[in-house]
């Protein structure tokens, strides 16, 4: 009794961000789309968590729901997001605003969409600092230079004096990362930070982000659709499908012995030189007429009778993952015939 209580307590202490039951809806001309449906996961201190899933699975919307960036016609309808002891979803707007940028840093997908095209870079740094009460121009400049060199930009002054469109994709993303790190947040959220970049640059940027996070014992939530990235850079992975978390666990466990059929299908689908291309047929369910039962049922190779009518509950799998399925966790035979 006592030890499990202790375990729970120390777990709680270790948790930086705990999401429970997050649900978000969008009001569309065809009806209400249930984009996020009861998402649960945790980010512990110093941990890099990858959120992975195909396009439209709700990962980006979940992130925005946590940050309070969901606007009409979308609405967060349920759930809690406890960060440093406070539920972000019930915080008054002004408090949430203060947390953004300062305690939680955000790295956007496309740097040219994040940076203001008509404002000098220097000014944008000032704006961010000023938004959190830091009016001292000189100091801000010094810090900006520091963060820019931290992200590997050799001539920070030139960049500061210039505009976004004068930068290459990689450099612009570095600037965005610098902005996210400017106020020393404890949690960094990155929404597909390398999708728009060249392959060679992608690695550099990911390495950079990882080192910045590790150096300062920060935590990170990395949203991506690329399992390879997750495997290489994350400690924990959360797999999402149709607005639900289908599996959550350490990267090692999930990649080696995935419990959920969807995760297995994703891993199987990773292309390998000598194997024919495996694909997963079918499409995401209609989010307006959200199916009862498991949303993955129509595409699941191991579907059962009850899968279409009864919603599955989260279960533990052998390697400490949590997964959302009716199947029993007989997963040890996965490795046969796969190319992971």
């Amino acid at each position, binding site marked *: 009794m006592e030890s499990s209580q202790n375990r729970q307590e120390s777990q709680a202490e270790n948790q930086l961000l705990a999401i429970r039951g997050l649900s978000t809806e969008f009001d569309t001309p065809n*009806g209400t789309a249930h984009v996020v449906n009861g998402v649960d996961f945790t980010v512990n201190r110093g941990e890099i968590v990858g959120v992975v899933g195909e396009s439209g699975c709700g990962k980006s919307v979940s992130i925005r729901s946590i940050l309070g960036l969901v606007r009409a016609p979308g609405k967060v309808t349920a759930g809690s997001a406890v960060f440093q002891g406070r539920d972000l979803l019930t915080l008054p707007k002004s408090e949430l605003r203060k947390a953004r940028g300062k305690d939680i840093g955000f790295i956007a997908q496309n740097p040219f969409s994040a940076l203001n095209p008509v404002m000098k870079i220097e000014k944008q740094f000032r704006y961010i600092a000023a938004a959190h009460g830091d009016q001292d121009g000189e100091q801000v400049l010094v810090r900006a230079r520091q963060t820019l060199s931290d992200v590997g930009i050799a001539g920070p002054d030139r960049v500061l004096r210039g505009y976004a469109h004068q930068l290459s994709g990689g450099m612009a993303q570095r600037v965005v990362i610098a902005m996210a790190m400017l106020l020393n947040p404890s949690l960094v959220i990155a929404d597909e930070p390398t999708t728009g970049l060249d392959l060679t640059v992608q690695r550099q940027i990911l390495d950079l982000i990882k080192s910045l996070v590790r150096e300062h014992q920060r935590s990170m939530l990395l949203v991506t659709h690329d399992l390879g990235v997750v495997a290489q850079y994350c400690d924990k992975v959360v797999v999402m499908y149709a607005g639900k978390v289908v599996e959550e666990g350490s990267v090692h466990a999930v990649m080696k012995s995935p419990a959920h059929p969807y995760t297995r299908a994703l891993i199987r689908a990773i292309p390998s030189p000598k194997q024919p291309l495996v694909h997963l047929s079918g499409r995401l369910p209609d989010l307006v007429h959200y199916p009862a039962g498991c949303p993955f049922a129509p595409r699941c190779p191991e579907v059962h009778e009850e899968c279409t009518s009864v919603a599955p509950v989260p279960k533990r799998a052998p390697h400490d993952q949590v997964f959302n399925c009716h199947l029993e966790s007989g997963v040890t035979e996965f490795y046969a015939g796969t190319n992971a």
Partner: protein
Amino acid sequence: MTPETITAPKQPRSWRRIRARARWIIPTTALTVMVLAAFFAPLPFDPDTPAQGKTLVPPGSEHWLGTDKFGLDVFSRLIASAGLDIPLAITGLIVSLALGVPLGLLASQRGRWGESVVRVLDVFQAFPLLILAIAVVALMGNNIQNVVVAIAIINVPRFIRLVRSEGLTIRESRYFEAAEAIGVPNHRLMFKHMLPNMIGTILSQASLAVAHAIVVIASLSFLGIGINAADASWGAMIQTGAQSMTTGQWWASVFPGLAIFVTIMCFNSISHCLQENFGRAKQL
């Protein structure tokens, strides 16, 4: 196996549909009724014959909207004007489209011709078009055909620009590229591939242009240009009643002004619906 749905369609959906339909049905009906009434409905008074001794009678049971300073019944004249102003505006637009759309299509072709057309239009746009229109009508002869010319002068550049710009965008699309690659002849490219894809936007803008033309016609008849002062036209009615406004007899000017307002709102609404339903989807 088909998954069962757990959410029933909400009320708002059908309500939305009704509202969307009403958006164009009501205006179109209103406009048609107005024009038909002008030609066929029996009006309570002859719009051109003044009632003796009954000048500037306020709205009442006999003259529903009152009479103007000549003793003419405002209501009858109002309806009669609909038969002049609305068809005139539409005619002007049809002429503008007939000239503007082909020229715009031609201008959307690659090459210097298109560029020079735009340059000329740019210079043309530098002039105050309304005054230009007024000047044209006054100098060419004060008749209705020239009013149509005036409307055309104002709208043809606008449509050339619109069609050219839509055409250029369509040129960038995949399906157009495919058609070119197969070797479809140029005129067919333009008429069968480009035009149908921009017709929604063109018609939507045309509806807006008709609304604007109504204002132009009203301005012209207000100044007594182009349209014979004795003919019933809303602008002329406003002019007749203008002086009386300063002494409190508002009905002779306000009702024709309201008629213009209603007409314009109708065309705006139709334009909005056309854009929503037939406007080109913004994808390639």
